[in-house]
């Protein structure tokens, strides 16, 4: 069951995302962005981790029409090896309405089996007309 963006409230937890980034995915990501493949033979480009978390988030929570990714924060805390199992925890850190927009900030923590490797905060804005009570 997917999550309704407009029903999100501060403190809500979204389903955790489990994924890996194998070498082939790293090559495809680098080919798309244009970044030098040679720099990332073993580990995963840290921004790619953020991109895959956002992709998982959108799969779980289809964004309403008119939604915008307005801001992004990341802390990269350790390198992630290609193929390493990862789990992202997602929680609604803020939710507010301002100037006709529903603004949601989702905090992310990405872990391997033994360590936190990334923290992030994603700001998504969507027209507030359809906000649920």
């Amino acid at each position, binding site marked *: 069951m997917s999550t309704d963006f407009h029903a999100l409230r501060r403190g809500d937890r979204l389903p955790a995302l489990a994924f890996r980034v194998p070498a082939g*995915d790293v090559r*495809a*990501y680098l*080919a*798309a*962005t*244009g*970044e*030098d493949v040679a*720099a990332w033979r073993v*580990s*995963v*480009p*840290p*921004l*790619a981790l*953020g*991109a*895959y978390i*956002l*992709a*998982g988030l*959108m*799969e779980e929570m289809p*964004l309403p*029409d*008119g939604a*915008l*990714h*307005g*801001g*992004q*924060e*990341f*802390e*990269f*805390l*350790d*390198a*992630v090896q290609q193929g390493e199992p990862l789990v992202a925890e997602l929680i609604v850190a803020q939710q507010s309405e301002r100037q006709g927009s529903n603004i949601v900030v989702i905090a992310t923590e990405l872990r391997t089996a033994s360590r936190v490797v990334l923290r992030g905060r994603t700001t998504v804005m969507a027209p507030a007309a359809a906000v649920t009570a």
Partner: protein
Amino acid sequence: MSAPPVELSLTRLIDQARVDAYAEAARDPNPIHTDEAFAASSPFGQRIAHGMLVLALVSELMSEAFGERWARTGGLKVRWRAPAIPPVTVAARASLRGVSEGVATYDVTCEAADGTVLLAGTASVTPGEP
């Protein structure tokens, strides 16, 4: 610790082929990036590049300068200011704001060729030993 570079920059064309490739590679299903008919009815009236694709240029700048230190100690805080409408040549720049307690902080921007600021914010990294 060696002195961190003062200025970093790179320029890259973001065309629709790159956007399509990124959508597939990053598993981003949003049709506003890839579906011309869908995007025509969006507020932008046309397809736009992924914000994360534009931001990837900043991450590339930092990883070129700091290697895996970027993956271990990097930080980003950005706002997107305007959509990148392909084809667009994007200039990414990082200017050293200062170093405090071993952390180098950069002001970062991505601009279109016409001067439109696509994103702005800061990047930080702990350069460490050379």
